[in-house]
């Protein structure tokens, strides 16, 4: 009775989690293909990027640390995004602010009280590519968390999609097991998938 209930719930969850995630699956599948096929000309984005340079007068209060200065500059420029590559000097600060499809490289000069923004905007293909990888990870310091709320939300949704897909995979095994006598080729296909995965993850480096 309990097993029947579990398999019934498992099947329902498989259907509804799958339907809930369908657009996310399409997004990450298509963007994954774009990242692996940089030679597809119709999806080129770097050559089509738009560049814009603006110079703005700003006021930088003295006695602040680099984080406070960056926050103050972002507030004055009315921009937001994931802040990266902060390089603080005695009389200037350089950093970049990004969100998917958009990068803003900023140089603020304390003495001249000016801020130079070099903005890069990508087309739809560039946006798709950056959505796939936009998790706020810092290669130089892996212990730091994303500093923009929306990066955290997007990273959380990436985790959610991954956990959802793990459930869909495992639940499919349970669903097939129930009807394995009708679908006997399932033994072969599941085994083939497992062998391939184990080979690439575990065996190849020891062979």
């Amino acid at each position, binding site marked *: 009775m309990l097993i029947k209930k579990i398999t019934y719930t498992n099947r*329902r969850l498989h*259907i*509804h*989690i*799958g*339907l*809930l*995630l*369908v*657009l*996310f*699956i*399409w997004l990450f*599948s*298509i963007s994954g*293909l774009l*990242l692996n096929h*940089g*030679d597809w000309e119709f999806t080129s984005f770097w050559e089509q990027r738009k560049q814009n340079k603006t110079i703005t007068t700003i006021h930088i209060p003295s006695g602040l640390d680099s984080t406070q200065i960056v926050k103050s500059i972002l507030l004055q420029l009315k921009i937001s995004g994931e802040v990266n590559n902060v390089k603080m000097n005695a009389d200037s600060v350089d950093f970049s602010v990004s*969100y*998917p499809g958009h990068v803003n490289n900023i140089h603020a000069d304390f003495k001249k009280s000016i801020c130079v923004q070099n903005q890069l905007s990508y087309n739809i293909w560039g946006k798709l590519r950056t*959505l796939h990888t*936009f*998790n706020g*990870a810092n290669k130089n310091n*892996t*212990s*730091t*968390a994303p500093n923009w709320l*929306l990066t955290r*939300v*997007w*990273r959380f*949704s*990436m*985790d959610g*999609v*991954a*956990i959802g*897909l*793990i459930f*869909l*995979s495992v639940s*499919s*095994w349970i*669903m097939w097991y129930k009807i394995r006598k009708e*679908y006997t080729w*399932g033994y072969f*296909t*599941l085994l*083939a*998938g497992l062998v*391939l*995965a*184990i080979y*690439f*993850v575990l065996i*190849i*480096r020891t*062979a």
Partner: protein
Amino acid sequence: MKKYYPSIRALHLYFGLLISPLVLIFCISVLVLNHTGYVDSNYAIKNLPVIKTRIDKIPYDSSDLQTAKNIIQKLGIKGEIDYIFQNDSQISFPVLLPGFTTSIKIDKQTNEVLISRKEEGTLRATNFLHKMPGPHNAKLRGNSFFMKNWKLLADGVVYLLLFLSASGVFLWYFLKVERKLGWVSIVVGIILFTGLLFFLLT
């Protein structure tokens, strides 16, 4: 359309079972990539002892890549050659496998070879596979047998995943019992998806 239901159901089942272990690799690696700090602090990279050896002659060839390929063949090392650095005094390049990196440095004057190896573990192996072949070093990428196969496999998984999600929607549509709740799931998914993209992209 309903006449296609049995065959689409069978394909959905078989393709799903086939790629499910590979989908697990991609999903686990997403968690690894998003929480690198946790992985780094709990699963240390093991540096193996450096090997010092010598080759009789550097097997120069038509390109840096071919030379590097000849070198690893001589040294009995397998893997994907990453970027190659070469100047007047040395040639160096990493050789990558999922979860294992070998760095090779050859002194051009003495033919002395330094081989450093890093055992990165299973979680980082999934991470590596997720990122490969990827957008970087496109000219060099796919220089090993395993990477050529992985590239085909990764593409295959994505195409089948697209098929599975589309066929899943088709199969659900004919399940009258689940139709109402199914619409709710789809609408919630659309709201979450468009809402997130709206805030992220604008």
